């Protein structure tokens, strides 16, 4: 009985902190989303569901969703393919695995905004390393970030660069956790490597793959902001404007606070729907 009191007492400070710091601002944002509040004016005005009704007709919002979804599916997909191949190869045994692992950790640990800064000079039209390399193999200069068709793919390239090692390291941990016996039995039985991968390794890796895709998907949808803010601000035009960038524009450039809050709640809802679909597909607990 005394243990139960103690148990609750120990959780109390943490729960209070979350309530005040996490839940309260969220409720405040929900409250805000039912109001119209353009910042120079001092008083928010209650408008009911008007903000949400406007969202349904907001073309810029729909395009931002399309870009965000395209961004998430493509980057996470490529990260997975590259990471899986790399993890498979490394799991077959190479020397210096510890060192390789450490080196691969570097991009993951660097602040995304610093990663943006690292890539910026590489993309430079006249002095950038990328155009120099293209020149070496006889190709013309590319305007990496400056054209509407290229801006978003460039941001995706950066994201793929930063997070492929993350995917690889998770999947490598998965490969290493597969028990050796069934693999060796299959090998002695004459199964091809491809068959072993498909019939033994892959089913055993499914939970790990699920976690890796889920984590990357959530972060890439909800937290992709820093490099885009630094390199394109959603431009040229709105060609690289994902949901995060659009909400930033609405809230902090146009100061339409109520509408911005309504947009962020819609985004949260979309994230929840996405995750529900993911769980249906993967059937993970």
């Amino acid at each position, binding site marked *: 009985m005394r*243990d139960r009191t103690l*148990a*609750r007492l*120990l*959780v109390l*400070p*943490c729960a209070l*902190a*979350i309530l005040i*710091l*996490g839940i309260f*601002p*969220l409720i*405040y944002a929900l409250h*805000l989303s039912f109001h119209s509040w353009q910042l120079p004016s001092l008083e928010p005005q209650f408008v009911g569901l008007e903000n949400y009704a406007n969202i349904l007709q907001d073309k810029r919002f729909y395009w931002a969703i399309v870009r965000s979804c395209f961004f998430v599916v493509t980057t996470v997909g490529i990260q997975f393919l590259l990471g899986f191949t*790399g993890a498979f*190869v*490394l799991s077959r045994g*190479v020397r210096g695995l510890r060192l*390789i692992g450490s080196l*691969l*950790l*570097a*991009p993951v*640990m660097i*602040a*995304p*905004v*610093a990663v*943006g*800064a690292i890539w*910026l*000079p590489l993309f430079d039209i*006249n002095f950038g*390393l990328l155009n*120099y390399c293209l020149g070496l193999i006889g190709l013309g200069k590319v305007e990496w970030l400056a054209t509407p068709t290229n801006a978003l793919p460039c941001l995706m390239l950066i994201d793929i*660069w930063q997070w*492929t090692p993350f995917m690889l*390291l*998770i999947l490598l*941990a998965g490969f290493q956790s597969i028990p050796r016996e069934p693999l060796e039995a299959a090998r002695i039985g004459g199964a091809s490597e491809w068959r072993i991968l498909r019939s033994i390794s892959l089913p055993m890796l499914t939970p*790990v793959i699920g*976690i890796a895709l889920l*984590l990357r998907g*959530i972060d890439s*949808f*909800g*937290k992709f*902001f*820093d490099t885009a*803010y*630094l390199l394109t601000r959603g431009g040229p035009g709105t060609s690289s404007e994902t949901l*995060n960038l659009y*909400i*930033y524009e609405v809230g902090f450039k146009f100061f339409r606070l109520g509408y911005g*809050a309504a947009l*962020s709640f819609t*985004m*949260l809802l979309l*994230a929840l729907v996405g995750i529900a679909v993911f769980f249906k597909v993967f059937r993970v607990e």
Partner: protein
Amino acid sequence: MSYRRRSNAETMSRAGRYGLVVLLLAFSASPILWMLLSTVKLNIEIFSDPPVFIPQHIPQAIQENWEHALAPRSQGGLGGLKSIGDSAIIAVLNTLLVIVLAVPAAYSVARFKTGGKHFIIWIISQRILPPISLVLPYFLLFRELRLLDTHLGLILIYTTFNLPLAVWLLQGFFAKIPKEVEEAALIGGCSRVKALLRVTLPLALPGVAVTMLFCFIFAWNEFLFAVMLTRSRVITLPAIIPGLLYTGSMEPRFGPLFTLTAVSIFPILLTAFVLQKYVIRGLTFGAIKE
């Protein structure tokens, strides 16, 4: 015959394997190496066509880059020294605050199953929440509370994001420590709290260290809130960067910026290497335990 063919195939696959590893490391490391090379280049060498692969003025470049990076803004520098201080204050105090709040909570969850299923749902929902949806309310609340542009403001916000991760990671580490060890201490006359502090916590020390590392990294690297909610009194290292790149007519000075970047990632990488064994666990939100 068949033996020789097989060994040929094996050498092939081995060569392929190492080829792929080299390719992978080159892809992964080259942007970072190029950045590091820029820290020993003068600005003319950075903006040069063809690119400079072997810098000619290394000592001079290092001196200029470091001076410019660390000099205060009032003297035309990046204000790096002040920003290192700001980032360190915020990251260290945030980490300590989170640990103090998270250790008892995690212990309670691991030992007494406090919260049960609700707890897990809360953890996951914290992770799903897009940070941008909290920026506006925080901005407005902080304006009222006069917390804009302060260390305390960012420390509190980062606590919101770090607490769930910390509780989650720590409870995993606590759950692994056998109950019997603690019970022995209880029979020996220790109180629960004393047993936690004297027996369980020391055993969970690697876990606590990893948790602290991840809290620190998050606060050290965070950009969105830092750039939106602070302006002049407090500028963390990530928040310096956009101001530097949009200087108007001047060419951005990458040399000093990258010097600062290198300085800021060095302590993190070092600690991560030391704690490498546990890092995957932190990265995957405790889902994968090696």
